[in-house]
């Protein structure tokens, strides 16, 4: 894989839920290369003041337009929110999800919180998929219409029961499992959720891919800062989230 920096035109930045920003950018090359589960390594604000790029997953691609969605959390994402002209983007970066409808005919897609967003482009590329989305509360429920179109079955849950099913998305997936007999689970979300999904996939013996998030440096595999623990020993114990991931097979990693 060859890396590139792209100067991307910002088409829009829109707050779609409290502190949740949907950004649309235009760049043909980037759009052509992007695969589900990959991310963009984005320069936010003044690079002398903020030397690290911010890794944000690709949410959707339509023609030469890419969409990504992020939560405004700190200095970097605040600066990003105010960049309305162009963005300096390294990408697309990382290993995405394995899209293999011949092998996996009955996939489940599950996302929690901002981990919902990387799952849209994946769901769109799967001929059939059951999608399970979890949000904290009603005000954060987003992309429901898009997922409804992309998935063959959609389940939306909120932690406080203010919208959709009351509880966790994984509990809904578990309830449906006996009936639907999924042959792969794709997941992205908070670490606790991923840990529970990893345990469930192991219990039922279904292959599972999870997308991980970690504080990141170079984004290209050189600096070894965005590590995730694996079952290996020695120099291979910690794998690079940016290069070996961000998507890993669940059985490879220690969460």
């Amino acid at each position, binding site marked *: *894989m*060859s*890396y590139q*920096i792209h100067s991307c035109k910002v088409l829009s930045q829109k707050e779609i839920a409290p502190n949740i920003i949907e950004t649309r950018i235009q760049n043909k090359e980037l759009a052509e290369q992007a695969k589900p589960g990959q991310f963009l390594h984005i*320069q936010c604000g003044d*690079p*002398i*003041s*903020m*030397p*690290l*790029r911010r890794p944000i997953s690709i949410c959707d691609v339509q023609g030469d337009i890419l969409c990504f969605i992020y939560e405004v959390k700190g*200095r*970097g994402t605040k600066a990003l929110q105010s960049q309305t002209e162009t963005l300096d983007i*390294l990408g697309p970066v990382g290993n995405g999800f394995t899209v293999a409808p011949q092998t996996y005919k009955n996939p489940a897609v599950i996302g929690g919180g901002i981990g919902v967003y990387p799952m849209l482009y994946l769901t769109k590329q799967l001929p059939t998929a059951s999608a399970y989305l979890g949000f904290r509360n009603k005000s954060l429920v987003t992309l429901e219409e898009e997922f409804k179109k992309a998935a063959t079955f959609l389940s939306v849950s909120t932690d406080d029961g203010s919208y959709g099913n009351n509880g966790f998305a994984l509990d809904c997936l578990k309830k449906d499992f006996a009936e639907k007999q999924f042959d792969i689970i794709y997941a992205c979300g908070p670490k606790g959720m991923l840990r529970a999904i990893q345990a469930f996939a192991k219990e039922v013996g279904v292959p599972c891919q999870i997308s991980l998030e*970690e*504080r*990141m*440096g*170079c*984004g*290209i*595999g*050189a*600096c*070894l*800062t*965005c*590590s*995730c*623990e694996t079952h290996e*020993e*020695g*120099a*291979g*114990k*910690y794998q690079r989230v940016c*290069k070996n991931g961000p998507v890993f097979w669940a059985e490879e990693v220690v969460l």
Partner: protein
Amino acid sequence: MNLKVNIAGIELENPVIAASGTFGFGREYAEFYDLSEIGAISVKGLTKAPRAGNPPTRITETYGGILNSVGLQNPGVDAFIKEEIPFLRQYRCKIIANMAGSTFEDYCEMAEKLSDADVDLLEMNISCPNVKAGGAAFGTNPDTVYEITKTVRKYAKRPLIVKLSPNVSDITETAKAAEAGGADALSLINTLTGMAIDVKTRRPILANVIGGMSGPCVKPVAVRMVYQVHKATKLPIIGMGGITTGDDAVEFMLAGSHAIMVGTANFTDPYACPKIRDGIQAYMKQYNIEDVNDLVGKVIVD
């Protein structure tokens, strides 16, 4: 216009060197540009045996810089010699083997092995803040710096650079100790130890609690230390600490650096090294400087 510099008998095409730990073994950056464009690469810190490194979180941004605590994750010196040197030798850039040990014996053994391998210079890292044994423990005491340099010198058949820690009260003491011990050159500064706490969770952001700070925020400290060491020793100096532009590099050269290293800036912009080289050239053109070596130590202090 001459950009060539000479460090302890080794000629570099230009004074820009990729700093250890930010550039791996060059493979990732070779996807962006021809590595022959830079003077040298100081490779990821090598240890005698492969090393897993510290648990995550290993990095966080601070104002104008970063904190890291990778903890010397690397495949070990033997894998480096077998797998990485042949790759790097495809390019004209010189190879600096950065060594990190826990004991004097570790450094001696690595210096001997690497001298027999095809590398150009050895850089002895006695200033890593992220490991428990060795590392900065050796680099902060002038007597130990003298002893370890003298001991490792006997095994090093290539020019030996000693990388100095800034976490000392007087860096000229450790610089002079390395010179007396037989160092051929000095590189400075390694990272300044730092810490950041997440006030929401009240926990340190780095799993290792304390890490090494680098980036633009450390530059004035680094320039000051290069200036002091240049006055205190006769050794060639490789200066580093927050260099992001050609002007930053010139600043280090005026303070007394013969060459410079670029670290954190590689994360911001993968093309940082060749851009900094171009920036040095632009400065030379603007001020009618024929030879980059004419900048070394030329700060005017009235």
